[in-house]
């Protein structure tokens, strides 16, 4: 087991990671650009209310931004998602998202593709938090669909 693998299985490290992404989320704050795709996710659950933006051009995710009022799980998981998806092709992004969603549903997935996002591998034990863990990811999935439909 490599040092990274060890860390990603260490609950204390994972907790610190989630705390860090919650307190200091990456790619946080929306930008005012009309050419960005955007999703306001407020209807799925009563309480998290976030907006995710994506800059998708030539089949590449150039940027992801998000903001809103949200819990530790949705904030940190969306922050980690932004780190993972920026710079990826749509195909790579889809693969990462689908592995993540498999993990959240407690099915087989490739942890190497998810890097830090494996921090949420146990969320399935609390069914009511699955929505929190997927809200940002579903927004991204929808925007990838939209961009492909637009170009297809």
């Amino acid at each position, binding site marked *: 087991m490599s040092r990274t693998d060890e860390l990603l299985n260490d*609950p204390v490290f*994972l*907790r610190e990671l*989630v*705390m860090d992404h*919650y307190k200091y989320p990456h790619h946080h704050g929306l930008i005012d650009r009309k050419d960005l795709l955007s999703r306001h996710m407020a209807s799925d659950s*009563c*309480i*998290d*209310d976030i907006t995710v933006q994506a800059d998708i051009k030539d089949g590449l995710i150039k940027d992801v931004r998000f903001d809103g*009022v*949200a*819990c*530790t*799980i949705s904030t940190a998981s969306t922050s980690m998602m932004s780190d993972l998806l920026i710079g990826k092709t749509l195909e790579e992004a889809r693969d990462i998202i689908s592995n993540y969603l498999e993990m959240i549903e407690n099915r087989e997935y490739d942890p190497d593709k998810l890097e830090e996002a494996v*921090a*949420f591998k*146990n*969320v399935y*034990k*609390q069914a*009511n*938090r699955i929505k*929190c863990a997927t809200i940002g990811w579903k927004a991204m999935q929808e925007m990838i669909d939209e961009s492909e439909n637009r170009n297809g």
Partner: protein
Amino acid sequence: MFDVNEVRKDFPMIMNHPDMIYFDNGATTYKPHCVLDAMMEYYTCYNSNIERGDYDTAIRADKAYAHTRESVAKLVNCETKEVVFLANVTAALNQVAYGLAKDHLKEGDTVLLSEAEHASNLLPWFSLSKQKGFRIHYIPLDQQANADPEALERCLDDSVKVISLAYVSNVLGSVQPIKEICRIAHERNILVCVDGAQAIGHRKIDFKDLDADFFCFSSHKMCGPDGVGVLIGKYPLLQEMDPLLLGGGMNARFYADGSYILKDAPEKFEAGTPNIEGVIGLSAACEYLMSLGMDQIHAYEKELRSHFIDQIKDLDQIILYNPDNLSGPVTFNVKDIFAQDVAGYLASKGIAVRSGNHCAKILHEIIGTDQSVRASLYFYNTKEEIDRFVEALKGLSLESAIDVFI
């Protein structure tokens, strides 16, 4: 005063989850054996549809269904013919809004609501105001969502025709001075509808003394079964009001030319086969509460709540939104920890509370937060449970909240 440890034995949910602390009574309450037994007896001994059955079990079902009107009338001091059974308090509030919008309200009229109302006392009015052209205004509330009758009086002009308010706010437990509001309203021929969802089963309700025109509540928030709501209305007003649903059981005659004659209230509001089982269970719930005594229940809950407030008011990390309200839920946040993370942490300690905006999505204007944690008590809760809750809360930090799902 009843013995809470004896009372707890009446509730199978408590006996089946002896270590769980259930502080989500604002959402729903547990059902005692007697309520479950009454429903089981209906299904096992006299399961039949009501009305016009010419056989013994049907007649027995008719009687049991009708008997609930008497139990409810006794519980809230109204006439039996003023008791309408619907699906829930939401259906009752929709019925009132629909009925008043149809024949009582016209363009330019005003309906007064408050920003502390539950969605079910706002959305029907929102929708109907668009169709009928009446306006909606909000009465002024203080920071703990209490309405002041004098401030209300200043809002009243000739356009105000209806006031619809929750007796007890589902978020803050604010108790509105309904009797005083009714007095002021009736001087000006304004009708008053009361959402009693969080009041029923927690305090003595005297419909005649309050002098409200309509009073709505749900059975499941007073130890009764789900799926039954009650609309109490002054009889002449019910007679004038059009039903929201039409169908079987509520018509007297109808003809091929499209004309029809409806039954009198309350039956004309109860189209279709009702929730017979639920209505029968509600009767048992009314009797159960009356056997404990509504005044005793209320006094015990106040005592519990004040113990709760005493225990948490000095905790540094707690922001309390309604310390001064004497009844209803205790609503709070923990500094720097999102409400749902608090609820998730408490759940891991076997404590059931609710986080969110509690279906009162415009209340944040008053209390300055979008979401909060609500701990709502009932007469089967204990001081020991509150002490355990407070101990659990003391162990809450961002770290421990995250550890729950790592």
